[in-house]
C-alpha cells in the first residue's frame, strides 16, 4: 500500500537555513546539508528546500547545497524558489534535485508548466499554489504571498494538472505560521478534483492536524517546517500516531 509521505521543509537563504533547526546532534544547525542528513536519519520520506535568497546571482550557492545534499541523502529532494525558466530547472536537476517546485512563474505563465513537464517529465514538476480565503472562496497569491493573482486555486490546480504538473503543493496563507492546522476544506475541494497527488502545507501545530490533512483534506503528503525544526514533534512520533490511526506510513 502506498504510504502517506511526511516532508520536512527547509527555508534556505544564501545557503543557510532560516527559521532555524533545533536538533541536538547538529554541529551547525544552519547548514542545510547537515539538517537534511538529520531528517534523512529521522525517517523523513522526502525533503523540500525552499530558496528564499533575494538575488538570483546567489543561485550557485543553492546549487552547491543541493549537490552536497544529494551526495549524502538518498531520498527524493524537491527544490523551489525563483524557478523561472527551463534552464533554472535543468540546473537544479543536474545538481541532484529530483523535483522542482514552481510558484509565481507557473501562475503568471501557465504555459511554463507545459514546457517544463514536456522537457523534464511531469514527475519532476511540482506546482506550488499559495492560497488565501476571501469573501466567496479562495484566491491565489504570488511573489511570496504579496500579490493577488485573481485566480481561483481550485480551478487553477486542475489547469496545472492538465498542463502536466506531477504534483501540487498547496499552502494556505491564512494558516501558515498559525499552528491552527491545514485548511482542510480547500484541500478537500482540490484533492477531490485532481488525479495527481496534493501536498498539504501551512498551519501544522500538532499531529492531529497532520491526520486531518490526510483524512479530511485527502492529502497524499504532508509538509511541515517549524514543528519538525524545533523538535516539537519528531517524524517518528508522527508516523507512530498515524499508524495507530490506521493510516499507512513507511516505518
Amino acid at each position: 500500500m502506498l504510504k502517506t509521505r511526511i516532508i520536512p521543509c527547509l527555508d534556505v537563504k544564501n545557503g543557510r537555513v532560516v527559521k532555524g533547526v533545533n536538533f541536538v546532534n547538529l554541529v551547525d544547525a544552519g547548514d542545510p546539508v547537515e539538517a537534511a542528513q538529520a531528517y534523512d536519519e529521522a525517517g523523513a520520506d522526502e525533503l523540500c528546500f525552499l530558496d528564499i535568497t533575494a538575488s538570483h546571482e546567489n543561485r550557485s550557492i543553492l546549487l552547491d547545497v543541493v549537490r552536497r545534499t544529494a551526495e549524502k541523502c538518498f531520498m527524493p529532494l524537491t527544490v523551489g524558489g525563483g524557478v523561472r525558466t527551463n534552464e533554472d530547472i535543468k540546473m537544479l536537476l543536474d545538481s541532484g534535485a529530483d523535483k522542482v517546485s514552481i510558484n509565481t512563474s507557473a501562475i503568471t505563465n501557465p504555459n511554463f508548466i507545459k514546457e517544463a513537464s514536456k522537457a523534464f517529465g511531469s514527475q519532476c514538476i511540482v506546482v506550488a499554489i499559495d492560497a488565501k480565503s476571501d469573501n466567496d472562496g479562495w484566491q491565489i497569491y504570488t511573489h511570496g504571498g504579496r500579490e493577488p493573482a485573481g485566480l481561483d486555486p481550485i480551478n487553477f490546480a486542475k489547469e496545472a494538472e492538465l498542463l502536466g504538473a506531477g504534483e501540487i503543493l498547496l499552502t494556505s496563507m491564512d494558516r501558515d505560521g498559525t499552528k491552527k492546522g491545514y485548511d482542510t476544506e480547500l484541500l478537500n475541494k482540490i484533492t477531490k478534483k485532481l488525479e495527481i497527488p496534493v501536498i498539504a502545507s501551512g498551519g501544522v501545530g500538532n499531529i492531529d492536524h497532520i491526520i486531518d490533512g490526510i483524512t479530511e483534506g485527502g492529502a497524499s503528503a504532508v509538509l511541515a517546517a517549524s514543528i519538525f525544526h524545533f523538535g516539537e514533534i519528531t517524524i517518528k512520533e508522527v508516523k507512530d500516531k498515524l499508524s495507530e490511526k490506521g493510516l499507512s506510513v513507511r516505518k
Partner: protein
Amino acid sequence: MRNINIAIINYECGNIHSARKAFELALTELDISGSVTVTNEPEIIFKADKLVLPGVGAFSECFNKLKSVKGLSESITERVHGHGVPILGICIGLQLLADKGFENIESKGLGWISGQVENLCPDDKNLKIPHMGWNEVNFKRDDGRFSDLNGEDFYFVHSYYFNAKDTDNILATTNYNKPFPSALIKNNIIGTQFHPEKSQRSGVEFIKRFLMWKP
C-alpha cells in the same frame, strides 16, 4: 571478484547524480574496490562489470535518446547479450527493456524482456496518478539474493508499468489498486520500477545485492 567497475549509462534522461552516489556508497559498504562511471562511451561500457540503465521521462523520448548516441545501444546489447554482463534498469530504464510502450504514442522498446508498458489506470478513483511515494515491494522468488528485502518500502514515481508477458520474469510485485510487476528479471537482466537510488537504506541494500548478484 574484488573489483567492480560500474557504468551508469548517461543518455540525457534524468538525474543520475544520486545513482552514482548510491552505487559508490554500496561499493564502500561492501568493502569492494572499483569505480562508478557515468558514461555514454562504448569503450567504457565494454570494460564495465555491471551496467546501470537509469532514466526518468517519457518512454518514446528516452528510447530515441538512447538510440541517438552513436554505438551506445549496440555496445550495451553486445555487453549484455554477448558477454553476459549484468544490467540493472531503473524506472524508464526498466520500461525500455519491454517490447513496446504506450506512453503518449506507441513506441518500440529494446525487447529484452517480453511485455509492454501500459498506463497504470487504477479503477479506484481515490488513487492518484502518478503512483508517487513509498510502497512495499514483494519479492516473489529468489534467483539471486533479493528476497530478504521482501516487504521493504521503496520509492516510486511513475504513471506507466511493465506488463510482463511471461510471469516467470516477475521478480517482485507491488500493490496499487492491483498488484503490478515492480521488479523483473531475466537471465543477467534486472529492472526495477522503483528507484533504489532514492530509497534510502532499502535502496542501498538492493544495490549491494545487485552488485553481488551472479546470474
